[in-house]
């Protein structure tokens, strides 16, 4: 279900607010005048689509954790709690737009057509991964979904996305590129370079920061002395928006606003979405060491899914039966996809040598032969 909406001109979203922009409160009640859906020109079907996308993202995420516990995945990095920030912003894009993911983006890219087999292939490192199991879980990208394949260096994607935006401008395309990162990513030079160049060249780049309060264990105030992250846009002559990242409608509205601006040649923007990571940083983390259960529990009550569901219920669009039905349907799809991904098997070692350069040079062909020899010997001798 893709939307055909455009931000209605009546909608005035302001940069540099002191408080995050919100459309619905923690209890799913509209903030301000009128029903937010009406204000945003979103129909019921759009709202339901958004909710389903968030639930899917959550369920994919749950399965990620299960696969680690089952010993099938070596690692998992969660998205739990940040679904609204991802889905709300991705929803503002056209299919032709480009996404520079960060490691928490993986499950949400299903929204852009990445199949469940592909996503779980990535998590499991098997042949259904479009990137052939080359990277750790969390590093999903797919050309088909117009999502680039991120590396692990925090913030590096921002500066590459800036270059992508430059290409779009040079080619006079009407597409935009959105680059994701955590609040920790604003500390790296890549963030600085990306926004500075984007400002100078007025590029169609949106840097979308998920401020989830922690960079692993390091709390937000240790990341920067700036009051908000959005204010950092001032350093580059850009607008910076501060939005409630657990309010999918607000995230959508703000993103749609800047996407429309960028598409119209209005240049780049920075968005800070205030959210919270409900799970440990990754399957290798122990978050008890640096935050209290009370803090986590308090945020669990602000779960973006619960909040949006309440809103839908208040509009009579949702109930427990629908919820059950949805979860079950998704669960089945996921289980099926995991099975396919698992059975797809390990990538062929030979390809490793063939995809370093466009054409494999002699020394890599030689190394490939050595490896094949070694594999044979190991099989014989047992290594």
């Amino acid at each position, binding site marked *: 279900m893709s939307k055909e909406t455009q931000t209605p001109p009546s909608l005035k979203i302001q940069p540099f607010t002191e408080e995050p922009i919100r459309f619905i409160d923690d209890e799913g009640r509209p903030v301000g005048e009128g029903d937010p859906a009406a204000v945003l020109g979103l129909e019921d079907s759009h709202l339901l689509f958004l909710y389903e996308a968030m639930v899917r993202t959550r369920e994919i995420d749950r399965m990620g954790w299960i696969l680690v516990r089952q010993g099938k995945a070596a690692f998992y990095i969660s998205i739990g709690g940040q679904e609204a920030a991802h889905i709300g912003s991705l929803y503002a894009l056209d299919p032709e737009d480009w996404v520079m993911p960060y490691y928490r983006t993986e499950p949400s890219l299903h929204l852009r057509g990445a199949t469940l087999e592909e996503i779980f292939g990535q998590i499991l490192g098997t042949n259904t991964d479009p990137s052939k199991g080359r990277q750790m879980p969390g590093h999903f990208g797919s050309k088909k979904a117009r999502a680039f394949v991120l590396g692990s260096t925090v913030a590096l994607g921002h500066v590459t996305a800036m270059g992508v935006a430059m290409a779009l401008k040079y080619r006079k395309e009407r597409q935009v590129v959105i680059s994701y990162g955590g609040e920790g990513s604003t500390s790296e030079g890549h963030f600085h370079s990306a926004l500075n160049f984007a400002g100078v060249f007025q590029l169609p780049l949106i840097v979308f920061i998920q401020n989830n309060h922690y960079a692993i264990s390091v709390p937000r105030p240790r990341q920067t002395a700036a009051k908000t992250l959005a204010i950092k846009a001032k350093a580059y002559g850009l607008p910076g928006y501060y939005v409630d990242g657990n309010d999918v409608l607000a995230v959508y509205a703000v993103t749609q606003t800047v996407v429309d601006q960028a598409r119209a040649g209005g240049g780049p923007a920075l968005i800070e979405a205030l959210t919270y990571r409900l799970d440990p940083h990754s399957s290798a983390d122990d978050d008890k060491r640096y935050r209290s259960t009370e803090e986590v529990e308090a945020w669990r009550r602000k779960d973006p899914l619960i909040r949006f569901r309440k809103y839908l219920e208040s509009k009579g669009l949702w109930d427990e039966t629908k919820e059950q039905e949805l979860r079950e349907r998704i669960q089945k799809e996921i289980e099926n996809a995991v099975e396919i991904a698992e059975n797809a098997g*390990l990538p062929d070692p030979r390809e490793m040598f063939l995809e370093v350069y466009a054409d494999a040079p002699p020394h890599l062909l030689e190394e490939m032969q050595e490896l094949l020899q070694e594999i044979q010997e190991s099989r014989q001798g047992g290594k």
Partner: protein
Amino acid sequence: MPVMTIGEAIRDALRGELARDDRVLVFGEDVGKRGGVFNITQGLQEEFGEERVFDTPLDENGILGMATGLALMGLRPVAEIQFIDFIWPGFDVIASDIAKYRFRSGGQYGVPLVIRSPYGGGVKGGLYHSQSPEAIFGHLSGLKVVIPSTPSDAKGLLTSVIRDDDPVIFLEPKKIYFAVKEEVPAGEHTVPLSKARIARSGKDVTVVTYGYMFHETMKAVEALVQEGIDPEVIDLRTIVPYDAETILESVGKTGKLVIVIEAPKILSVASEISALVAEKAIDVLDGPIVRVTGWDTPFPYALESYYMPNRTRIIRGVKKALSLI
């Protein structure tokens, strides 16, 4: 003597130096409450306070700039880079400032500092949590590069580098942080820099290695000995400036040389050691110098076990050096 893992031995060295010298500061991403993502600095902030052991913003460039400035002012910073793969955003500080400060200032200033970081493969970390870039640091004149392979060396070498007057990159083989145990001297313990360790004496072939590969090499040696081959194993310990003397002496005895490392082969430490011997001791050599290395590709995730040198690959390498295959 207490029995320790490499990780514990590193923590012990840090604790010892923090206690001994108030010029020592430990900092980096998540080294405080979290105790580092490998728990190496666990408990240190509690013990020494937030002024001595602290978290930084997520910016290696800032971390390294901070270390440089602290060292210029006479302190002894020990900066942690969470994974060596993430040091590149701060590489200019290393290449342009740290490695050259003493030289460019005509000896007016020095920057005695330590950059510690886990490196190497074997933990299913994929491209960016597995690399072994020691060659890159080693090519920058002015830096020292040190890699321990045992708990005792981990403690002794780290203590030595913290006390050393030059900047040092100290790389910790993460795969064996908690895998290898041995007795480690309690209290002060130093190991001299630029001195290799002859881990096994032998007469047939010299094998130079370091880090995790040392252990993989010892496994291969076991099998080789079964076949009647008697290798000498040198654990290099300091990668630059390395102990040429020990290597040349050993090759003088064996006439054969194999170098075993994890990094890609081209322009690697294996190439350097080979070139040293080909330049200074070609006359004693009676076989090819064989480099057993990772492949010249980025480090893969799913196929990690196909990438890293293992017993099989090392045995093949030694046999090549002995012209047996």
